[in-house]
């Protein structure tokens, strides 16, 4: 099964922890920020307390989200606990839970496209923007009708500079130009963000990218099929570039950052035209914690410091407008929501993808495999 961005973050953090690049404290703090929170609720508290269940994608996130997202909320709201569940809140699971009317989740680490998909089927609770403050996140694409984003990530163009001594690619048009930049390409075996890049390569202006032309972009992507390899998990994407199997690829900025650091800059990535995506949290309809989930989400968006903690640990970009200034200088160039980086990226249109993901992804996969 395709690995989600969230699962890959946790893999990456665990890897750095094992190599001793981050200490246990930072690790736990980072996981907490990912919503893998307050395990130390304790039974005594739980009796009187009102409990919220935050659902993440497992592993390290189970501890990290709790420290960065759960703990600040618990500290400010006596009598509440935030529990982490690492089941992995896929759209399918949320759907079956709400449809069976046995909802045990309050706040789920989902995506923009899933929020539109599920929201459209009346399976989510609308975000109450009297409680959640819109000004605590980015203006476009990060505060949606059915979800809001406490973190961000990006799909960037990453390339091996040793293969291009005359200068590397600077746009998706270059990515698709096998004459000028020969060599194997690397793409995620998933239409999301891949077709957006293909649309830019077809010459559509990044500022007016949507709606995408599914047929044309799928054809464009399939034109690289003979010269491409495809990744399913973040570690795979890293391996393909590190070992020289591919000369350039579209991968998550977290993995690109690791590659750039560990190859001493031989492998580079660029922000222009990268697809900036919101780490959207959603509230399933009929969640047990009720309105508390809105307040927890509000707290996650309102606290910039833990968001920076998450950037330090896992590379997820903060979304609170005050956070960028708190980011240490050396991390700024790897922060997707740093103003300098955000300006040149394209915000992925979650609404369009929510309506078209299933069809576009099926067409894309049919075209590139077999």
């Amino acid at each position, binding site marked *: *099964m*395709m690995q989600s961005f969230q699962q890959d973050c946790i893999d990456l953090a665990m890897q750095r922890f094992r190599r001793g690049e981050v200490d246990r404290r930072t690790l736990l703090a980072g996981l907490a920020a990912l919503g893998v929170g307050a395990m130390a609720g304790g039974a005594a508290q739980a009796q009187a307390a009102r409990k919220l269940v935050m659902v993440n994608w497992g592993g390290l996130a189970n501890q990290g989200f709790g420290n960065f997202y759960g703990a600040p909320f618990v500290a400010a709201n006596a009598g509440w606990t935030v529990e982490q569940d690492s089941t992995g809140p896929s759209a*399918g699971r949320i759907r079956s839970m709400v449809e069976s009317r046995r909802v045990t989740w309050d706040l789920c680490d989902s995506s923009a496209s899933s929020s539109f998909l599920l929201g459209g089927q009346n399976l989510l609770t609308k975000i109450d923007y009297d409680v959640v403050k819109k000004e605590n996140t980015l203006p476009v694409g990060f505060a949606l009708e059915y979800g809001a984003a406490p973190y961000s990530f990006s799909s960037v163009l990453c390339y091996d500079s040793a293969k291009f001594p005359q200068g590397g690619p600077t746009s998706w048009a270059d990515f698709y130009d096998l004459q000028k930049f020969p060599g194997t390409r690397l793409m995620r*075996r*998933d239409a999301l963000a891949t077709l957006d890049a293909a649309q830019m390569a077809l010459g559509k202006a990044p500022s007016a990218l949507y709606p995408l032309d599914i047929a044309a972009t799928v054809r464009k992507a399939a034109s690289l*099929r003979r010269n*491409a*390899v*495809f*990744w*399913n998990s973040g570690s795979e994407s890293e391996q393909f570039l590190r*070992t*020289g*199997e591919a000369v350039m690829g579209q991968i998550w900025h977290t993995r690109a950052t690791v590659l750039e650091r560990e190859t001493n800059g031989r492998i580079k990535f660029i922000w222009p035209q990268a697809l900036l995506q919101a780490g959207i949290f959603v509230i399933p309809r009929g969640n047990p914690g009720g309105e508390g989930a809105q307040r927890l989400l509000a707290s996650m968006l309102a606290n910039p410091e833990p968001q920076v903690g998450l950037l330090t640990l896992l590379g997820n970009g903060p979304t609170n407008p005050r956070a960028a200034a708190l980011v240490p200088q050396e991390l700024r160039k790897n922060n997707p929501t740093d103003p300098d980086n955000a300006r040149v990226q394209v915000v992925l249109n979650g609404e369009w993808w929510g309506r078209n993901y*299933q069809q576009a*992804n*099926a067409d894309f*996969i*049919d*075209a*590139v*495999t*077999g």
Partner: protein
Amino acid sequence: MSDSGRPGLGWWLLILPALLLLLAFYVAPIVQVLAVSVTEPEMGLGNYERIFTSGSVQRVILTTLRICLITTVFALLLGYGIAYAITLASPRMKGWWILAVLVPLWISVLVRAFAWVTLLRRQGLINNTLMESGLISEPLPLVWNEFGIIVGMVHYMVPFAVLPMLSSMREIDPRLLAAARGLGASRGDTFRRVFLPLSMPGVIAAGVLVFIFSLGFYITPAILGGGKTLMVAEWISLQILDLIRWGLGTMMATMLVLAILVTLAVFSRIVDLRRIFGSGA
């Protein structure tokens, strides 16, 4: 057994619990899953129609058949040589030979696939050696394509080809070969006209076994195929888990089961299938 030589009622009652268990927990769920292929997304044969209309479905079927046939041919050729050598070896050497055939069977298929990646990739052992010796200037595309998949699969399948052929070669009476030589046949003639025909049942049995086994291969093609060259098993998992097209996935699963049953039915008329699968010897 009863006097007539057929199993009596008592015997049937004895295996009844096992039979019911199989029906309830194995056959019924499989039928249920396969039934999805005619009920989703709507009732009817729409999913089966796609065999004739969808380029992707046709591509994956052709790729799978092509890879399986090539794998079977190479596994049989290599396996025949090995089985022949074992048959003619001294008893002590035989033991070593058989050990050498069996050892790879005990190594995880995952480990072997990744070992091939290390050997075959652009900066792998083979490409590096060829580049440094000046034979090639650009790395050869040895993996992330059909070639890589076939290499990995042949490697996996050779032992499965050797064993049935070995058992049938062992049954060939060596005196027949001596007689042929005594009657003036050359070494080549003896092999071609005596040994080869007598070993054919083993070859066919091995071929059926390897071909059927290859059809459902999952891990090796998934790792060596680079995410784009898909065989049918990986394609089914993609439909079920990622694309949520259960109808299409189960349609292909039904076709896979049918293909295997048809292959078995055809070849059961030619060879004794019970011998392939190790019973009734």
